[in-house]
């Protein structure tokens, strides 16, 4: 299971939204965090989120048994560890 956490602040709003376009991705709340999970690799398209640098590169709040395999101007990719 790939799992990342994203804090619920306005500028992060599109991150779980874009992630959830993948039908295998689930989003739930853990306190004020979005927990984004998938049995597959989670891929979030940066341009689809509309996030610019400061937000995009600080959007990941936590990784549960997962690791980031891509985090650049194109995409964030999180895979099970």
């Amino acid at each position, binding site marked *: 299971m790939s799992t990342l956490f994203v804090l619920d602040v306005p500028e992060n709003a599109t991150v779980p*939204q874009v992630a*959830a376009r993948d039908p295998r*991705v689930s*989003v739930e*709340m*853990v306190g004020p965090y979005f927990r984004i999970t998938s049995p597959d690799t989670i891929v979030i398209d940066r341009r689809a989120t509309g996030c610019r640098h400061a937000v995009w590169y600080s959007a990941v*709040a*936590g990784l*549960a*048994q997962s690791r980031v395999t891509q985090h650049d101007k194109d995409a964030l990719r999180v895979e099970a560890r």
Partner: protein
Amino acid sequence: MTAPAPATGAQTVPPVHRVKGVDHAAFPTFDPAGTVRFYRDVLRFPVVHSICAAGWGPEKHPDFIHFFFDIGNDDRIAFFYYFGFERPAGPDAKGDVYAGFDADVPQFWVNSRHLAIHVDSEEDLLEYRRRLDESAWPVEMQVMHETIESIYTHDPNGYMIEITRALRPVTPQEDLDAELTIDALIDVVTGEDPSMDKLLARKAELIVERAPAWRPAAGVPAKAVLAEALPAGAVAADRVAPQAVPAGAAPAGAGAAQAPAAEGVARA
């Protein structure tokens, strides 16, 4: 008449957090004339205090002037000018009069130490931009960091100065997030081979442990307090329930943050 006694002893307990901002941040200068031009004449920060001190102590402590500029909020930036004291030798390829670095030292490291002064509005930020741009120390960079907007320049001493405004208030959950980040950081840097990967793994553990029970402190305006708007079971940390957040039960007052919770979860 006698005033009623306090109901509890709470009023007699001093607060834990008693400080009141920056009294002054002090820097040495070898160019007091330029420093005064920059802070008093260009930025128009009033001179609010100065000390003319004859040298003292066992060392050959030179005579000095310690002078202060008001940076608002009763906070001050201060300088020391020592008569006859030459700048200590050192690399000066990068940095400022206090700390010079060789040319191969990365600029991000050099820039990491700076003073940021707060303004309340775009109008104020642009006013300082105008004052600097008309001076010998024009704005070198204006950056919108999504949540803040800042202008940067270097003063006559080479000190990097930022003037910044917030584009929105800091939300209570960002305070929680900061606490979890710092606790994770301490855990990671006291272990072996600290890395961002390890920090984010540790932080995920702390989120699961502590975020579900989190509530904003009393009296703090909640901008996007999700937990308050959710069914009790929806915040259980051990649940992975795609439909835990019904559409429409999104964060209260979260602005744009309402959309993803509703759409992303409702889709599943």
